[in-house]
Each structure stands twice: as C-alpha cells, then as structure tokens.
C-alpha cells in the first residue's frame, strides 16, 4: 500500500519564528549564567499574561462569582457573512475585547442550544465544568471568529471622516470635521479644485426624467446609487434612507459576486427569481447528502453551524455524505472513514453531473411519484406529503403560439373570464389532467394525484394547443444526453453518477443535495437549477432529514407590532429601471425603438429579467459605460466590488476618474480596494461596537433573530452629543440636511399613534428591538435585574430607558441579554415535518424563466433544469473563444476556513496561514516540473499573476485552486497617508494572489464587461480558462 502524505498548507502554521528559536537555543549557556528574566516579566508565574477568568464557578454547587472589571456579553460577529451570535468578554476598564466564543442561546453557535427562557446566570453554568455541562453545551466561535477582534484595534482603522488629497486613489487623505463632510456631500461645489461637483441635494430630482426619450429609466434621482456589502442587520435603515427617503431605486447588495448563481437557480426551482428562496439539508437528521460545489465545515453558510452538525452527524449520527467539488477540503475528513467522501469534478460542470443523476432517476423509476403527482397543496397534504410542486401542470409547447412557454391557465380554456390585470395571476388556475378521465381540470380542483407524464393537445375554443406536463419537459431535457455524455462533460465516471443516484434514492425523504458558491460559473444558473431539481424529484422539502427552508427571522423593521419602521409620511416609491438592468428588455424604450428599426436584438448590453440587483453589471456597463444611464454619485457601504468581482480590477482606473462618477462616498471602517478610490471615507464602527438585527442565512429549523449591540465603546471619533461617528448618524445627518422625510424629530410612528424621533442609532435599533420583543404569540418576558447584571447590558441601559417606553425596555433588555430572540429547539419539527414549511409550489418548470429571452440573441431560455456548457453573452461557447488547447487549465476559487475578504489584517490569522499557495494537481505538476513552493505564473485572458504552488492530489487534474481572501492591494497592503501621518507598512497583508484579479471580460460584448452567467448575471470565478508555467524553484 502506498501512502502519500502532504501537508495541507491552507492550515499549516509556518511563520518566521525559526530564527527566534535558533537564537534562543544557542544562548542557553549565557542564560544559565544570567538567570531568569532575559525577557519581559509576565503577570503570573504559571499562567503568564492570561487575564483573570471571566467568572468563577464552584464545581460542587454551581455558585457563580463574577469577575469585576470584565463583562461577558452575548452579541453578534461580522467576521464573515454567517453572522453568528457570540459571547464577547470585555475588559471594561481598557475597553478591550479579551476573547470571543459562542452564545449558548443561539443555534448558530451551539447544538443543542439553551431554552430561551433560561436565566443568564444559568447560561454561564451551561458553559462551565459544573456537572460537565460545558461539554455538551459548548458554544463556539470559529478560528476566524476567535481572531477577528483584532479588527477593533487595527492600526488601519479609519476613525475620523476623511477627504481625499490629490487625485482619487493617491492614498493621501485629510481628516475633516463631520459637519464639513455632511455639508460637502450634500452641497457639492468645487470640492477638490477640479471643478464643480453636484452634491446629493442637487442630485435629488424626483421628477425630471434622466432621458425624456426613455422615461422608463426613471427620474434623475436614480443617478445616485449605493453598493452595499455584507447585510449586517442595518440594511433596512440604509434602504429607508436611499430608497424610501432619498428616492433612488439603485440600492444593491453583494449577492451577484457571492453565491448569486446558486440563489438564482434555487429561485427558479422555488418560483421566485427575485427573492430567491432556498433550502438546506437537515444535516442533523439526514442519512445521505451530496454537497455539490460546497463543502460543509469548509465553506457554505452557516459555516460554523454546518461544521458542528456535520461533525456530530458523521460520528454519532446516521449521516453519510459526499462532496463533489474540484478541490478536496477538510470536509472529507479521512478519520470519518466511509462516512465522508470526495469526488472531484470539472469546474462549472455540475449541471451535467446533476442532469446525469436526474436521467438515472427517470430511467430507473426512482423519482418520488407520490410527491410529484400532487397538483396542489391540499392534495399533497391529504396524501401525507409536506409540500408540493408543479410537475403535473401543463405547459404550452405549441410553436409560435402567443402563449408558448407559458403554463396553461383556466382562462386559456375559457373556464374563467378575468380582468386583464388578473389574467394569468393567482386567480387564474393552472391546468392538470385527471388521470381517470384524461380530461383537463383546474390544478386546485382535485384532491388526488394528477397525471405526471403527458404530451398531447388540449382544446381551447376552436384551437388545439400542444401541451406537456412540466415533468415531461424535464424528462425530455434530461434524456437529451446519455449518461456517458454527462460523464464526459463533468469528468465524474458514469458508474459513480449512477451509484450516487442509487444511494440518493435509497433513503426516502432523508436524502438531499446541496450547493452554494461552487455554482459561480458560466453555467451557474442552470447548474444550480439542476442541482436543486434533484431535491424536487426526491420530494424531500419540508421533511426532517430532507431539506428545510428554516424558521427565518423575527422581522424587526416592519410596521409594528410596536413601531412603524417601514411606512412613514412622505415615503417615496422609487421608480424606473435599476442600474443592473434586471428587468425585461422587451419592456424598455430601447427595445421599442430598436424594434421599430426592425432589429430588436441585440440590446446594447445584456438584460436580466429573472435576476435581482447585480453589482456585476453596475460596475461594468452601468458605472463605467453609463448604460442605461450614467451615475452621478456612488455611495459605498462596507462594499468592495473591485476586490470581489472577477475582472472588476480593471475598472479601478475608470473609477478613479471623476468623469466616470463625479462623487464617490464610502462608509467603511477600513480603506479597501474600492473605498481607496472614494472622495470621502466615513468611518463605520466594527463588530461588537455596532447595532444590528440579523438572522441565519439558512439551515436553522427554528425562527431566530440575532441582536448585535455595542458591548464596547466605539473607537471612532465622537460627535458633539457624544454619539460615535458611524453609518447611522451619517445617514441621519444627510437626511436632515437634505430635509428628507422619515428622519429627524417625530419620524417614527408608534402603533399607538405617538411619534418618536429618528436622531440616533439607538432611536432606530432599540425600536426595532421592541418590534422583535412583541412578535409571535406573546411578547418576550422582562429581563430580571440579575439578567442585566450578568449580561453586561447595563452598559446600554441608559439608552434603553431613555428611548423606550416603560413597558418596553426590560423586554428589549431580555433580548439583548441573550444576544437575540430564539425559538426553542424542540419547536423546529412537528413530528417528521418541519414546523416552518415552504408552502408554495416548487417549480419543475419555471414559467418566468421559460418565457424569458436573451436580450442579445433573442432566444428563449429553457424553463426546466438543463445542462448548458458555459457561453458568453451572445451564446458563443466559451471553449470556442478560449480553446482548451490554448488554455489547458481552469481556475477555481475556494473558500478559506480562516480568512474572509476583510480579515487579512488580523495578524493571528496571518501567522497561522500567511499565504494562499495555488493548488496544482500532482500529475499536472509532474508534467510541468512544478514542486510545492515553486513560484508559478498563472495567465488568463484577463491577466497574469505570480503565485506560489502547492502540489496536491486533492485538486482535479487541469484545475488551479485559489483560496479566497488574499492578494490584497489595500486593507493595509499599502500604507496611506492621513493628515500627514503614514500608516504602518505591513507588506505581509499583500501576500498571495486574488483570483478575481485574473477574471475575464466577455469578449462578445462591446464596452465594459465582466464575464457573468448569461441568465443570473452573476460573476464567474469557477472555470476561468488559464495557462500555467513555473517561473522559479522554491
């Protein structure tokens, strides 16, 4: 037996301490003579500089003694997008975080988590040695979550408002007063000695169209646009400012360069391509799960919760799982033996793999027919199912028919007569076939199964219309290629595909597939649709051990139950076409104008009717080319698209040109690759200094809202009233200066009709907390004095009492003391079914997708899952433009267990993991004479970078694996000069390579572009064509 062992660098500690050790050892003799204290003297003879424990607990009786000078507070982490609830131990005198671990009340950090009513005192016992409670009750932070507290004290933090000195991106800034900041951003003027710049006041024109010839673009106010990063629980206030008060339609998040393709494909399956619902496997109860393009414990969201559950399930539980990914990760833990497996796959070909599985399921009769054949929710319930889908619904397939691609409706058959506005809406039933009579009936009529497979015609008045059931269309699509062809496309052997399909269909509802970031390829949308469709065919949604949508959140910013945080007098309803062009091209003035000239297609650049907002398109044709209209002011909030979007680095110079966007304001605690190009930087608070209301991205069966509240005094400058400068006071000050509705005195209406101010961060967040407290069947209890004393909430108690009503403040304190509001774990399932179920129909055939067209080619997209090799915008195969013989490698991005996009400044993480060497398959390396540690040059059609190689068996041949989070040019990689003071030089922050700097443009497009999925509009970072050569030996 041959065993190869290679150290996985991604988790290898390899700092520069060799010299330190060698020196120490050689000086042994001298030290023996000299005696102790050659170095610094620590506090304690045995425990060194370890601070006093946060509390002491008597192991015999559980009595607790708190440690004076320290608090343990349950709040939230923002170290990555998972947003776990954590416990933060603070030295209150030094205003310093000593350590971070998990909050035992939250499922994000604990399994099993504490019943919500547990007194805070008892929660401390649950973490301790007392009765060994802390073993099963342990509540954790991940490696990154333990280290990210360094961001609080980072020397690279921006703590005062900055205005650029010299050209954009020059790295020179002057601190300015908050009032000057607000005055200049609102008022404009000759701000930089470069000529006049319009401020936000002049740009707020809610009436004049941007283009009188294209009124559908909306008013000029839309030319003020805002890009945001991680939705950290403050976004409802930001949207209130930008959209509902200021009036611009252009607010966008980071989804299009995060996991957007997965969400888009999932959204197609869940019937909502804008909100994009998604489900996750119930890891704790599943028997078999295939993870495709995601790896539990290595990536995915919630990262840590999945890791905890997978570890338990593969040892103490029933779970076996397989990770299908181009790169091996910790998820295939060898010690777990047969419980965990890894199958390498070619990047971006998951759709071929998934359609192979789907084909096998059809061919072998292994689809869940009982589930699939239920035509509506009531029939499904009667059949004992936990959900339903539209597999039986008839689709019009008549070529050239005006309704081609649409689901057949009752009104098509003359069964109902509806107003035009209601036609094809919810009141217009779908049509299925009664298996007994073969007659068409309204989908909501039968209480039993409908015909699953059918192709034929139905008679509508005088015409016969060709129809098929959705499942018939899917089967036809799946049978288009044979298993061998699917196997050839994805590189997974046919017998492995068949074997996985057999295993997946051998566990009833307790089997699932799951995906995430691995879908960010040129085929991402249909790959994800195909992956999620496997779950539909398994009929596993809403089942224990199957897939669950989760309990969601206690919504804090709606209208009530205590305060109206959504509606307010004067609220603007933004109108027009968003900058991401995520609306149907066929409804635009441009289309009509072009159609009039006889050539409706192609559009100037692609449109994405089934997508949500797209930063990918904002950055390229939107901002750089001014299509469909130019941007006059760009606001950035903790966003970094220049670093995060593959290929966006090439827009940095354009962004640096004020002619592209005259005003750029970044709200950010750090100077990142994008905010470095701003005119102004407004300091934001970080981590445990901030307020925010967040929830799980998915995978938690119960309802939950995490409360993030400031357990530290923020390190940003203070305003005259004592408020720290951060996002909220900046927006409030802008709103007041601009005299916007919804801000200032009396801006918030209580449900009892009383009026309340929105002048501070607390005005907003504490009232949101009151809403959270009163949601559900009954409000949360009052916090006891002991809860308050034990939880550190005393720090914010004056604000609670000053802001909230007498009957409210103790309830909000109850929530803050527990770091959120959490439904009890036992309420997650009702028997074998999830308590929180997705009640609408899953879409085997998605009408919105199946009737949409490429705005470039004018061709329709398929309405079912399909395998579609990556194409550029005009439909050209990527492999025809960049041929594999010229570009023999493919880049993939992989998640890091330690580093996220904005944690490179944490020295403790860097010392543990200083660089991201690029994974090269062992056979490829042998051929190119590359050894681990060699310097290599990676070239793509989008650029070239030098990197370090690590030779691995755990990388698919032909693949170059790049871990995300390195290759920074900012965040401290470059020392900026602020008011004449130079930041420290820490070149280590620039270590490694950023895959996104190798991202492609779309060569079939004119103007600025990045390569995106043609349907989802999402960034492509999996499967970027590349060349590889060795440049220097290690």
């Amino acid at each position, binding site marked *: 037996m041959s065993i190869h062992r290679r*150290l996985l660098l991604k988790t290898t500690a390899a700092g520069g301490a060799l010299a330190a050790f060698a020196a120490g050892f050689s000086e042994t003799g001298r030290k023996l003579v000299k005696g102790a204290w050659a170095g610094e003297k620590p506090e304690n003879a045995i425990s060194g500089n370890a601070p006093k424990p946060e509390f002491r607990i008597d192991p015999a009786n559980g009595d607790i003694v708190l440690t004076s000078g320290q608090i343990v507070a349950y709040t939230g982490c923002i170290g990555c997008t998972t947003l776990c609830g954590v416990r933060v131990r603070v030295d209150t005198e030094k205003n310093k975080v000593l350590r971070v671990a998990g909050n035992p009340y939250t499922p994000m950090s604990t399994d099993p988590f504490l019943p919500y009513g547990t007194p805070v005192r008892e929660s401390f016992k649950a973490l301790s040695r007392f009765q060994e409670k802390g073993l099963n009750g342990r509540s954790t932070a991940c490696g990154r979550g333990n280290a990210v507290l360094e961001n609080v004290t980072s020397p690279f933090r921006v703590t005062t408002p900055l205005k650029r000195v010299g050209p954009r991106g020059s790295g020179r800034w002057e601190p300015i007063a908050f009032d000057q900041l607000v005055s200049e951003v609102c008022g404009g003027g000759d701000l930089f000695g470069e000529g006049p710049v319009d401020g936000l006041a002049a740009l707020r024109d809610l009436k004049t169209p941007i283009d009188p010839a294209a009124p559908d673009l909306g008013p000029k106010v839309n030319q003020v646009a805002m890009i945001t990063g991680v939705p950290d629980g403050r976004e409802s206030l930001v949207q209130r400012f930008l959209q509902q008060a200021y009036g611009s339609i252009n607010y966008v998040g980071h989804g299009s360069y995060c996991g957007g393709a997965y969400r888009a494909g999932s959204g197609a399956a869940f019937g909502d391509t804008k909100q994009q619902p998604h489900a996750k496997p119930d890891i704790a109860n599943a028997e078999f799960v295939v993870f495709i393009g995601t790896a539990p414990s290595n990536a995915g969201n919630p990262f840590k919760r999945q*890791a905890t559950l997978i*570890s*338990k399930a593969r040892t103490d539980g029933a779970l076996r799982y397989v990770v299908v990914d181009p790169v*091996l990760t910790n998820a295939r833990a*060898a010690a777990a033996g047969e419980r965990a497996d890894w199958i390498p796959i070619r990047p971006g070909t998951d759709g071929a793999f998934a359609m192979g599985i789907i084909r096998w399921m059809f061919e072998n009769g292994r689809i869940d027919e009982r589930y699939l054949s239920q035509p509506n929710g009531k029939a499904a319930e009667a059949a004992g199912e936990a959900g339903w889908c539209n597999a039986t619904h008839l689709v019009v397939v008549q070529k050239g028919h005006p309704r081609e691609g649409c689901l057949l409706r009752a009104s098509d058959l003359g069964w109902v007569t509806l107003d035009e506005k209601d036609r094809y809406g919810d009141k217009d039933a779908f049509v299925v076939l009664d298996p007994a009579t073969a007659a068409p009936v309204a989908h909501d009529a039968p209480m039993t199964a409908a015909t699953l497979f059918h192709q034929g015609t139905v008679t509508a008045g005088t015409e016969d219309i060709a129809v098929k059931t959705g499942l018939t269309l899917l089967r036809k699509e799946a049978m288009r290629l044979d298993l061998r062809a699917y196997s050839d496309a994805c590189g997974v052997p046919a017998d492995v595909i068949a074997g996985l399909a057999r295993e997946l269909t051998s566990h009833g509802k307790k089997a699932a597939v799951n995906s995430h970031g691995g879908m960010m390829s040129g085929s991402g949308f249909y790959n994800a649709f195909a992956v999620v469709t496997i779950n539909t065919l398994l009929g596993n949604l809403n089942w224990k051990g199957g897939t669950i949508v989760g309990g969601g959140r206690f919504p804090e910013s709606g209208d009530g139950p205590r305060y109206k945080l959504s509606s307010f007098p004067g609220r603007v309803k933004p109108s027009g076409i968003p900058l991401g062009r995520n609306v149907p091209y066929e409804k635009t003035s441009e289309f009509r104008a072009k159609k009039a000239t006889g050539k409706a297609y192609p559009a100037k650049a692609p449109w994405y009717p089934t997508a949500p907002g797209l930063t990918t398109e904002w950055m390229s044709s939107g901002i750089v080319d001014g299509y469909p209209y130019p941007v006059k002011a760009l606001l950035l909030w903790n966003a970094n698209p220049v670093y995060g979007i593959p290929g966006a680095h090439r827009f940095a110079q354009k962004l640096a040109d004020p002619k592209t966007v005259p005003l750029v304001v970044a709200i950010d605690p750090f100077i990142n690759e994008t905010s470095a190009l701003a005119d102004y930087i407004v300091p934001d608070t970080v981590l445990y200094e901030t307020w925010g209301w967040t929830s799980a991205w998915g995978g938690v069966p119960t309802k939950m809202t995490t409360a993030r509240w400031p357990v530290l005094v923020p390190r940003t400058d203070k305003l005259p009233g004592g408020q720290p400068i951060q996002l909220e006071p900046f927006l409030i000050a802008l709103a007041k200066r601009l005299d916007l509705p919804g801000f200032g005195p009396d801006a918030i209406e209580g449900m009892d009709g009383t009026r309340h101010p929105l002048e501070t961060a607390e005005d907003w967040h504490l009232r949101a907390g009151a809403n959270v407290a009163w949601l559900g069947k009954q409000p949360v209890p009052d916090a006891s004095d002991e809860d308050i004393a034990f939880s550190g909430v005393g720090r914010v108690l004056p604000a609670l009492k000053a802001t909230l009503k007498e009957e409210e403040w103790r309830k909000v304190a109850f929530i803050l003391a527990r770091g959120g509001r959490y439904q009890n774990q036992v309420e997650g399932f009702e028997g074998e079914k999830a308590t929180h179920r997705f009640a609408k129909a899953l879409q085997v055939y998605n009408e919105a997708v199946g009737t949409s067209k490429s705005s470039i080619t004018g061709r329709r997209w398929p309405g079912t899952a399909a395998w579609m090799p990556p194409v550029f915008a005009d439909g050209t195969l990527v492999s025809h433009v960049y041929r594999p013989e010229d570009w023999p490698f493919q880049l993939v991005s992989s998640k890091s267990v330690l580093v996220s996009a904005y944690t490179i400044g944490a*020295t*403790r993480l860097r010392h543990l993991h200083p660089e991201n060497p690029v994974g090269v398959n062992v056979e490829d390396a042998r051929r190119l004479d590359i050894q681990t*540690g060699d310097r290599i040059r990676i070239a793509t059609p989008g650029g070239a970078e030098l990197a370090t190689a690590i030779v691995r068996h755990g990388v698919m041949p032909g693949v170059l694996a790049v871990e995300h989070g390195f290759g920074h040019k900012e965040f401290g990689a470059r020392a900026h000069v602020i008011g004449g003071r130079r930041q420290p030089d820490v070149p280590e922050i620039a270590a490694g390579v950023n895959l996104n700097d190798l991202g492609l443009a779309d060569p079939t497009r004119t103007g600025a572009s990045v390569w995106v999925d043609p349907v989802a509009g999402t960034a492509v970072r999996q499967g970027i064509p590349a060349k590889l050569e060795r440049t220097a030996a290690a």
Partner: protein
Amino acid sequence: MDQSRRNFCLGFGAATVGAATLSPAPAEAVAAREGGDPAHRWGMVVDVRKCVGCQACTVACIMENDVPENSFRTIVSTYEVTEQGRSGTYMLPRLCNHCEDPPCIPVCPTGATFQREDGIVVVDNTVCVGCAYCVQACPYDARFINHETQTADKCTFCVHRVEAGLLPACVETCVGGARIFGDLKDPDSTVSKLVRERDPKVLKPEQGTQPRVFYIGLDPKFQGKVDGTPTLWRPSPQPHADAYAGKENA
C-alpha cells in the same frame, strides 16, 4: 509549540500511534509533584473524527493565554493523505500531553518545569532560565521558548480556568466538539468513560511517557509509513517582495 521547529508535520509523519497505557507513574515522578488538587487528574480525549480543522482552538488558545506571535501552544496539523487513489484530509489537534511520566521535567536544571498533583505540567516562569532543555526533551514538540519572556512556554490546560470551574479555551470553542476535557480520577466523567470504552490511542507510546491526551479515530496504520519527505511549504525568507513587481494585469 514553535511551528518552524522540525517542520511540525514530522510530528505526525514520524509519530507512532498506539494503545494507551494507564499504569501508574514512577514513584519518583509522583513524589516530585506539587500544588494542585490530588483528588483530580486532568486529561483530554480528542475525537479526531469530529475535528473539522477550523483552528478555533488554536486561536482561542492564543487569545486566552496571550501566546506570543508566531508561536502556538496548540494547533491542528492538517495533512492531505492519498491512499490507494483515495484522497482525504487528516486533522490532528496537538498540544502538551500532560504525560504521566513527563520527559521534560527531569531535564530542567532549575526546577521551573514541574507537574502539579492534578497532573497538569506547568512552567514557573519566575524560575525558568530559558535553557530549552525541556523543549528538546519533549517528544511531542509541545514546548517552545516564548520570544517575549525568553522562558519555556507550553499548554497549561488553561489551569487558571480549570481552577475557576471553567473549561480550557480550546475545549470551549471546539466547533466539532472533538476536544473533551475532564477528570480521569472521576470514573463517571466523560473522559473516563471514553478512555474505558473507546480504546483511544496516544502518540508515541513507545516513549513511555504515558500521555494523558488520548485520541479516538487515529488510525495506527499510518504510523511510520511516510512516503518521501513531507512537503512542507513555507514562505520565502523575504515574503512577497515581488508581490507587486510580478503583477501583469492585462
């Protein structure tokens, strides 16, 4: 433990894995113990099947104990292992074994290193002269010279927390629940039950050190079968000097 020393990976590569022995420590070793409560014997069981390699333990230890930069009292060594064409990741959390017969103690010329009556091996940094004999004597690479204090440094099982009725930082934050800590003298403790019932292994049993850190799921078949040199990559001496010069963005 100092990462640069002996490449660390060799620790596992060259390490043997074997059955734990629970025979009593030599009388002289027991006699030399001082401090701590003899009613307890603290130990750890690490279930490597549950380790997810997240390094939460590594960082929590650093934060809790103010471990100097670039040094580690505990870490999770992570290896890619390919066996008959099947690749996987092996994750091995490592720390001081708090041995029943610790080889670090007899070599200490000043008596700074000693074992408490509850089995925890500690260093009195007011007595240590930083000679590093103990660092050399430890077969597990569990010790290093703290470059700030110039004294020997190592895992203390977070003795200051254990004495306060709490758990060691690494155990508290173990995401996979792989680290289990408790009293081996208490027959009802979780660690006692696991040691009794799960046939845990220890590292380098042939050294006779009698570790009190046990491993479940460590496969003895890997011992001593290193194929060639483990390819530890390390940053170049002047890291990233060419990070900018090398950029050639098109």
